[in-house]
């Protein structure tokens, strides 16, 4: 490995400089990565991930996962009743869905489902967007004159979602705060957000080499439960449920799962 000078870096979440550094070797890809640890609870890479892996092979991996459908569906089966109890509307957006298992499940329960993924090889039917969630414009584009004639001058036309599902996507964003802000902006007044992210606190259990979520080509940030709760609360969300998961009944584990709702009264 080439020797490189390591400088302190600003945490992408709390913006404080840190110089706690892990040098992690990923044997699967035979590459090293520099990960910074910030006391706010975030661990982040020294550079943005290449995101070069999102292609048909990536989709195939998910499709061919052992007990894939059942495991990918498990979180939705578990949390859908809580979500349905907590919010009224039934419009759902799955961010970074890769395959449509979660959307299919919610659709069956009576939800109108939408999905967005940056993978150029995503497939699916219905309301599927291909693009970057943070910059994608979800709003309907209607000629202003037509709109004013139809529904009056001050009428607001805004597409909102009652549930935004972000299963293992937050850690992929180069600007996770922008992604969260975008999600919250897209939520309806009582909308909910489901987030699951790799939980870096599990290295206490697995040790650094055994932690399964070092993934320099995909992950920019790794979270702790407290960091995610803290950020969501700062952004005006109420935490309905937060838990650390080590069960492989879910499609991924050693992660944190959070259900949060917009504060509406």
């Amino acid at each position, binding site marked *: 490995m080439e020797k490189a000078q390591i400088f302190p870096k600003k945490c992408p979440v709390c913006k404080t400089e840190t110089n706690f550094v892990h040098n992690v070797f990923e044997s699967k890809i035979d590459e090293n990565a520099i990960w910074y640890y910030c006391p706010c609870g975030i661990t982040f890479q020294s550079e943005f991930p290449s995101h070069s892996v999102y292609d048909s092979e990536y989709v195939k991996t998910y499709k061919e996962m052992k007990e894939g459908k059942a495991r990918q569906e498990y979180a939705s089966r578990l949390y*859908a*009743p809580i979500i*349905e*109890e907590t919010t*009224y*509307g*039934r*419009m759902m957006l799955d961010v970074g869905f890769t395959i449509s298992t979660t959307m299919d499940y919610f*659709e*069956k*329960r*009576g*939800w*109108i*489902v939408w999905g967005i993924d940056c993978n150029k090889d995503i497939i699916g039917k219905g309301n599927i967007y291909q693009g970057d969630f943070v910059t994608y414009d979800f*709003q*309907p584009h*209607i000629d202003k004159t037509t*709109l004013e004639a*139809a*529904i009056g001058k001050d009428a607001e*036309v*805004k*597409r*909102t979602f*009652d549930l935004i599902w972000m299963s293992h996507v937050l850690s992929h964003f180069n600007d996770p705060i922008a992604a969260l802000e975008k999600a919250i902006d897209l939520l309806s007044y*009582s909308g909910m957000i489901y987030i699951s992210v790799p939980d870096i606190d599990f290295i206490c259990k697995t040790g650094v080499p055994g932690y399964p979520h070092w993934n320099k080509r995909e992950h920019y940030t790794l979270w702790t439960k407290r960091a995610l709760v803290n950020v969501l609360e700062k952004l005006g969300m109420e935490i309905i449920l937060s838990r650390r998961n080590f069960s492989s009944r879910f499609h991924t584990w050693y992660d944190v799962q959070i259900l949060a709702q917009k504060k509406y009264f």
Partner: protein
Amino acid sequence: MEIQLIHMVRKVKSMKNKTALIIRYGAYGDMVMITPVIKRLKELGYKVILNTSKRGMEILQHDTNIDKMIPYNDESVPIDKLNEHWKKVKEKIKPDWFCNFTESIECNVALHPIQPMYIYPKEERYERCNRNYYDVTEEWAGLEGCDKIPSLYFTKTEKEDAKYILKDGKINILWAMSGSGRQKVYPWVDYVMGELFLKYKEKIHIITIGDEKCQLLESLIDRNITNLSGKITMRMSMCLTGLVDLVISPDTGVLHASGCYETPKIALLGHTTGENITKYFKNAYPIEANCACAPCFRLIYDHGIQCPVEPVTKAAWCMAEGISPEIVFNKIDEVIQMRCLDGKSSNIPKEMSSV
């Protein structure tokens, strides 16, 4: 045969002076739905007494099967005192047969937000709620042999007044703009009407009806469109369903009223199904919303909160996205071709129950 006849006469005699008390407060459609039960009770020889709200009084007046109506003022009894009130009414009448239809449809096969099943997955709601309302009403009453289509009674004057709205020599289409809630608004009425006029030009006459709020939806003005929302009574709207050549309606009292007649009817169904409403109606063409949330079988009080909403029209998703204007236009076109252009139906009053 004779013995059977004697037996029947004895039975009818024994029923004489027996009283049946029905309690039903609710929307217009709910009132229409109980008419088969009322009719059946009369057939069985009961003196039928109905305790009902203003809507019921309006819709069921002149019903020859009802001997007496006891009015109920919606505001006179607080909801938590209703049980007591019903008990008093029952004690006063001392009926031989009694049925309270409160929650026979609502909370039974149309789910109220206070019910846990309201948020159950669609499949489970479908299993419980996809039942015909007339079957459910009969079952609730515990009677057998009820008709599965409703019946309404109008006076000659009412019919004459209603006929006055029709246009001679044209295909008269009655279009109900909305029902009891905004979730029943079909937002693409203008588009479909526009297409219809392009195709049929002077051949059709459209009468739009609804409450006063529906006037907002009556944006098309033409000499062959008669916009009557908020201008005529519900009775007259219902009377028209037996006189026009085609009725188009979401799940409303008007749709149920059209079930009394053979008039072709196109039902625009969002939260309910054809099984629920039009299963037994003659010449019914239900269009069920094709989207994930429909049919939800839910009672919607504020669709802006309870439903997914289409952001531009602000209409409920099932009506805006689940029923495309093309489908509605094609169905109307098909029905006009099949039923109205046969040279005999246009403007010829059909058989109507009259007083």
